[in-house]
């Protein structure tokens, strides 16, 4: 099944690439021959992840919020941060547990989209370092017993309610996504994330099966996936004159 998962991500990355080609061709020539010096804005974009409240509405056993912000550092690079909180109850055949905690992700986005002057739309690829601090409660567990000659399901099932606190996780995310200005200074963004767990502080005789910010963790596998759907507001922090490219000078 793992190759199939990988295939999905490769497909989605391809989708982004193909679309980026199509819009490069669509670009309209609207550049005005202004005599004023061209000023590039370096804004701070702050927003929330809309996918989490949507998930809260659809799933009974999920709570979460995420704040996402990025700041343009150079023409192409943005410093990016996401932080938030998640609580999730997972009900499996053999176990039922609740994970609750906070996460922070810090990294950068590279804008691969060539904007017309003054626009801040983006097709991004980026990386994040993620860290979570959380606790996990084992609500129910059933001893895996194939032969039930001595004990049935009711005797094999326990409700220990054991809480494993001060757990954590460290991971790396590879981000691919887009950001587009839908109204003045209002941006919508979408990103897919492929995560790789680096290290965790595991509960004793149990496992971190869900990590806030990282999402589901599978046994014997340290790869995960996630996405976010942000709406953000762009606050221009400062402007600076755009450096003219050499080709522009030649054309003029």
């Amino acid at each position, binding site marked *: 099944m793992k190759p199939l998962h990988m295939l999905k991500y490769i497909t989605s990355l391809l989708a982004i690439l193909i679309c980026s080609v199509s819009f490069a061709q669509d670009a*309209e020539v609207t550049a005005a021959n202004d005599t004023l010096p061209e000023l590039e804005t370096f804004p701070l974009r702050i927003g929330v992840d809309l996918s989490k409240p949507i998930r809260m509405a659809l799933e009974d056993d999920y709570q979460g919020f995420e704040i996402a912000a990025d700041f343009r550092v150079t023409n192409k690079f943005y410093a990016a941060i996401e932080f938030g909180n998640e609580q999730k109850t997972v009900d499996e*055949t*053999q176990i039922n547990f609740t994970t609750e905690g906070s996460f922070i992700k810090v990294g950068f986005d590279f804008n691969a989209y060539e904007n017309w002057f003054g626009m801040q739309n983006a097709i991004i690829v980026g990386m994040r370092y993620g860290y979570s601090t959380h606790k996990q409660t084992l609500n129910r567990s059933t*001893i895996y017993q194939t032969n039930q000659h001595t004990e049935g399901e009711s005797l*094999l099932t326990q409700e220990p309610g054991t809480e494993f606190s001060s757990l954590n996780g460290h991971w790396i995310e590879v981000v691919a996504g887009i950001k587009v200005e839908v109204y003045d200074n209002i941006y919508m963004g*979408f990103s*897919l994330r492929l995560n790789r767990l680096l290290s965790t502080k595991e509960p004793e005789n149990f*496992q971190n099966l869900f990590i806030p910010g990282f999402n589901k963790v599978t*046994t014997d596998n340290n790869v995960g996936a996630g996405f976010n759907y942000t709406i953000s507001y762009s606050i221009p922090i400062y402007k600076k004159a755009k450096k003219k490219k050499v080709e522009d000078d030649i054309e003029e």
Partner: protein
Amino acid sequence: MNRLSFLGIFAILTITALVSLSCERDDICVEGTLTTPLLVIEFFDAEIFTNTTEDVLKPTSDLWVEAVDPNTVIDNGVEVIVDPIQGEPQAVSTISIPLRTAQDATEYRFIKDYALDEDGNQLGNEDIITFNYSREEIFLSRACGFITNYTLNETDGVVLTTDGDTWISSNPAIVIENTIVEDETVTHVKIYH
């Protein structure tokens, strides 16, 4: 035009994300995984062992094994034992039995020459063995959850209830071959008869 293309990508990415999240693999506890083990007992010839100290397997005659107070379900108004150890009384030289995971002891009836008479009374020679052990719960995986491993007590791991007419030998006595019960491919207990 440009804005529309972006919205198109939004749609594609949203669909991709929803599809990839909804198609998550259902984790299944793979068959063949070492889970809660069964206790493996082998039956040996007591006479040969006394004379030569050699272990020679000796099948029991029409043996029927069942736990004392087994797990039962009512099926069509009849009380049926869940997962019987054997389908019918038979001559066997090895048998695998589950131990209780909620208690530190499990009692089993070992009935030799098992049969029922016309009135439904049990015939044959019944010996009761009590297995005493300590338990350890171990987390295995998301799909398998927790399992139990056992360690049979050194001194009173296997106790034969003496009733004056035991078919299981007290001399040579029952031997605990492996106190640790976590792998059902090895023999844990040797019974001489």
